[in-house]
């Protein structure tokens, strides 16, 4: 009778982590940046229909990188979780902290129990009445959860982008400045050269604390071009 080879738990977890990390690094980055009136999400995404950034609840949004089918499944679960909570209790009882914990449990259990981990990295963000009340959680494939401040960079070539954002980002700037910084960071290549990203190549959205109930809004078309300072002559 053949015995399976012994694999140490360390090796098993490391293999799974490497697998997940590789998958996540293949995609494009998504940036989450705090600005004076809220939280901005921006990523390179040529599709108008397959979103990486989405609304979860009144003041809560979700951004993800990695395998689309996996994070889409997690997003749908998050919307269901939030709507169920809000219906069962009250709208203000739905919090990003609760959702982040729920995701962390699900990702962690999946990482340990299943042969193939999720190849995803998520941000759950919530805007408060003032900037000090904003919350940003980063969740990774193994269920680790970290509370972040001011910015998060996920996926793709995240390290140099993260260094650049850390050096240049100020959370008290306006949306326009934050967006231009984000797009500039995304367009830098590892070799130091820079590409031009037009509005069509980007997916951008905000959680705007000044909006009455649902804070989430996508930045689309002319508004995005105007904010980028790339207004075309026809508009």
């Amino acid at each position, binding site marked *: 009778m053949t015995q399976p080879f012994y694999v140490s738990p360390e090796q098993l977890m490391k293999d799974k982590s490497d697998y997940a990390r590789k998958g996540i690094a293949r995609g494009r980055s998504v940036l989450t940046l705090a600005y004076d009136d809220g939280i901005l999400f921006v990523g390179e995404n040529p599709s108008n*229909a397959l*979103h990486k950034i*989405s*609304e*979860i609840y009144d003041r809560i949004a979700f951004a993800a990188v990695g395998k689309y089918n996996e994070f889409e*499944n*997690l997003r*749908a*679960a998050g*919307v*269901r*979780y939030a*709507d*169920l*909570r*809000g*219906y*069962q209790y009250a709208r203000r009882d739905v919090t990003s902290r609760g959702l982040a*914990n*729920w995701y962390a*449990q*699900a990702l962690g*259990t*999946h990482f340990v*129990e299943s042969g193939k981990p999720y190849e995803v990295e998520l941000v759950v963000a919530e805007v408060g009445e003032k900037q000090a009340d904003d919350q940003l959680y980063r969740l990774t494939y193994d269920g680790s959860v970290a509370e972040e401040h001011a910015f998060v960079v996920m996926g793709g070539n995240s390290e140099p982008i993260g260094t650049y954002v850390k050096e240049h980002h100020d959370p008290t700037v306006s949306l326009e400045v934050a967006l231009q910084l984000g797009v500039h960071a995304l367009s830098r290549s590892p070799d130091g050269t820079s590409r031009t990203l037009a509005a069509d190549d980007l997916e951008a959205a905000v959680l705007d604390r000044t909006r009455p109930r649902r804070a989430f809004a996508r930045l689309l078309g002319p508004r995005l071009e105007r904010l980028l300072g790339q207004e075309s002559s026809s508009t």
Partner: protein
Amino acid sequence: MAADAGLHGRLPPHFTTPGSSSFSEFLGHAAPDLLPSHRELPGGVIDVPHGTTIVAVVHASGVIMAGDRRATIGNLIAQRDIEKVFLADDYSVVGIAGTAGLAVEMVRLFQVELEHYEKMEGHVLSLDGKANRLSAMIRGNLSMAMQGLAVVPLFAGFDLDGGLGRIFGYDITGGRYEEHSFHSVGSGSTFARSALKKRYRNGVSEAEAVKLTVDALYDAADDDSATGGPDLTRGIWPVVMSVTDAGARRLPEDEVGAVVATVVGERMTNPGG
């Protein structure tokens, strides 16, 4: 606990089922006890608050819906300032007559249903789609209606595809009937509808439509004891909602108050309107 969101580990299967964008369908799996239609009722009759008259009028740029503020238990007034007309989403409103407790619960479920679909699918349901969802919810309530706990909604919204305001009436079996100019539900609806029938003209403006609804509710309150008229001593006016291509909004109190003052002023000299 039925509504266990799976805190002990994996995502529960209902949360990750692909393909369904309906909140009430999800609720039926994840927490069926929260669905109004999944309850078993003991026999017998109970006295609970009832809401009464709702009217809706189509005008040139959209639709107006208004409701009186009275809830009754038998011959008693249960509440003077109940609200029975609600924003359903950005482009539609819903008003409900019948058992107040169930009606409010159903509206809450309907609001979540519409927003849930929008978030899951990334686009808004068509106005017909929304009207049909409401139909299904009313149909689910049939067994309670048979025991006297009926809920009869009136739904109205702006159809962004057709560019016009539309009204949908319902019966307790979930039957859905589109009305093209005006409609009313609730105990005072006979009087409100007769009033509208005499005063309504095609292509009325938004302001005229607001006055038509306030007038119709005045007439309903005049002849139906379960419908409340404008309460001048307490300053309680009907709830008036307007839906146009710019979205749905509730008219501010002072705006409705001004219309009420005009209507009451006219009735001082001509009580029959």
